[in-house]
């Protein structure tokens, strides 16, 4: 079953096209990743899907409801974790959750039960009486994720949920998200962290300049755009030109990155045949980051 569907979705800010004709289908129970450099349109896309920002063009359905006409019903089943910390600094940790639960019309007793449950989940129950400004950045981020679970959402929309977290807290959040997925909660995850996308997402879409450049399972994207392994070689300029000539004459797929050359889609025995001084080369597993660079370039987008 398709849980989120967009058709020809477009968002303009004046003359700037932030999201350009995006059509997506997100299946029930999957974790769908949205990757892209700053300014690629990820947050704009997410804000439209969560009904807080109107689209310029195109349509959105969430759980078969048209977002335009059923925004309240849709928002009631969404768990939104925004990129910007908008916890309520006028309230304590527990009050934040109780107040949020009230926005969803969750009765008082149930709201209290769920608040304590999500606080325990993210190891914040000791801080339930703290004010928001007394929390560390990592605690705030965890609370932000916890708050997104208060309405037991069927669909979670997370905009960089682990930004600024230390590795311990990051793994805690990943673990909880994986658990939620196994309970059937669909996730739309927007991230800059390639490791996160590989670890959590069933499929990822790579966005650039408002468009979706490619969409598939992380492993498939890797094998399609860079192959299983990447060879890296660092050379001085003299050797480099020679090596580039060699690589070109052998018809190999490579990219020059500063002082280094990255070689893709290559079998190990192709490199030993005198193309390059392979003792200076390093072999490593290909990652989603390699795909990211290939699709979105190496220059700063903004």
């Amino acid at each position, binding site marked *: 079953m398709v849980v989120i569907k967009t058709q020809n979705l477009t968002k303009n800010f004046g003359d700037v096209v932030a999201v350009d004709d995006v059509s997506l289908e997100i299946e029930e129970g999957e974790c769908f990743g949205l990757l892209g450099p700053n300014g690629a349109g990820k947050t704009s896309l997410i804000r439209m899907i969560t009904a*807080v*920002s109107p689209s310029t063009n195109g349509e959105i359905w969430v759980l078969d409801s048209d977002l335009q006409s059923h925004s309240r019903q849709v928002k*009631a089943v969404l768990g939104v974790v925004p990129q910007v910390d908008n*916890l309520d600094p006028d309230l304590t940790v527990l009050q934040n959750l109780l107040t949020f639960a*009230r926005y969803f019309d969750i009765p008082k007793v149930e709201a209290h039960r769920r608040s304590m449950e999500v606080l325990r989940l993210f190891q914040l129950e000791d801080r339930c009486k703290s004010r928001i400004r007394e929390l560390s950045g990592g605690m705030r981020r965890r609370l932000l994720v916890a708050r997104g679970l208060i309405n037991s959402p069927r669909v979670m929309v997370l905009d960089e949920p682990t930004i600024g977290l230390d590795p311990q807290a990051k793994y805690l959040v990943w673990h909880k998200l994986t658990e939620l997925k196994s309970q059937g909660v669909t996730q739309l995850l927007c991230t800059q962290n390639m490791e996160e996308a590989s670890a959590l997402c069933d499929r990822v879409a790579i966005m650039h300049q408002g468009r979706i450049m490619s969409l598939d399972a992380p492993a498939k994207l890797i094998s399609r755009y860079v192959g299983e392994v990447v060879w890296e070689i660092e050379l001085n300029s003299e050797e480099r030109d020679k090596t580039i000539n060699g690589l070109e004459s052998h018809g190999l797929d490579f990219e020059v990155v500063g002082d280094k050359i990255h070689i893709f889609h290559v079998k190990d025995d192709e490199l030993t045949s005198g193309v390059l001084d392979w003792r200076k080369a390093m072999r490593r597993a290909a990652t989603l980051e390699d795909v990211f660079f290939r699709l979105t370039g190496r220059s700063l987008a903004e």
Partner: protein
Amino acid sequence: MRLFSWRFIRVWQRNRDVFFGLWHAEAPGFLAEPIIILLAMGLGLGAYVGLVDGQRYIEFIVPGLIAGYAMFSANFECTYGSFFRMEYQKTFDAIIATPLNIEDVTAGEIFWGATRSVLTGSVMLAVAAAFQLVHSPWALLIPIICFLEGILFSAIALFFTSVVPSIYSFNYYYSLFITPMFFFSGVFFPLSSFPEIVQTLSWAVPLTPVVYITRAVIGGEFQPGLLGALALIVALTVLFFSMSLVTMRRRLAT
């Protein structure tokens, strides 16, 4: 224009909880100041003022001070208060990601601002009554009048808040609109002391009809102008409430 739903009450509840959690930080300013003004102006200045009908000056200024400070409460809540929540705390962004819509937030802020007016007006009425400055039982209508007044001024304030670029813009709002209004609406002296042209202009500012009504109920003297004053308040309320529903959406739904 889209309308708000009953869910606005959730925003009102949020603001109420914050206010009563922090009342000791806000209440002294809002309650002490009008009482100080009442006593200083009423007793100090009042010693030099002789009114035509023999009324004591301190009694004369009670209705206007109640209306004036009820107005300030609504205004502060829906200018600085709302702007802080909207721009610095991003509270509204968090709320509109739940089943509440922007119009619910707008109405919740306005009705909360009106509640602040009722609180201020009621406490001031009680203080004035304790000083035996209130003589008519009609004065019990003051909380209702303050509620209507509060909706009016919260709507005007929130409309302004929804269009200003920065928090410093409120300096203009207070020094060019609110403060002059406080002095040209019959709070401290009867409008009849002004030249005719100023009297006419005074009726163009929204505090004037409110002072007119509070003066009538506290004095227990009803004039035919009362219905006109009430109609003016209702008309301005509908106008500014509707405009703020539109401009708040324009500001938040980007």
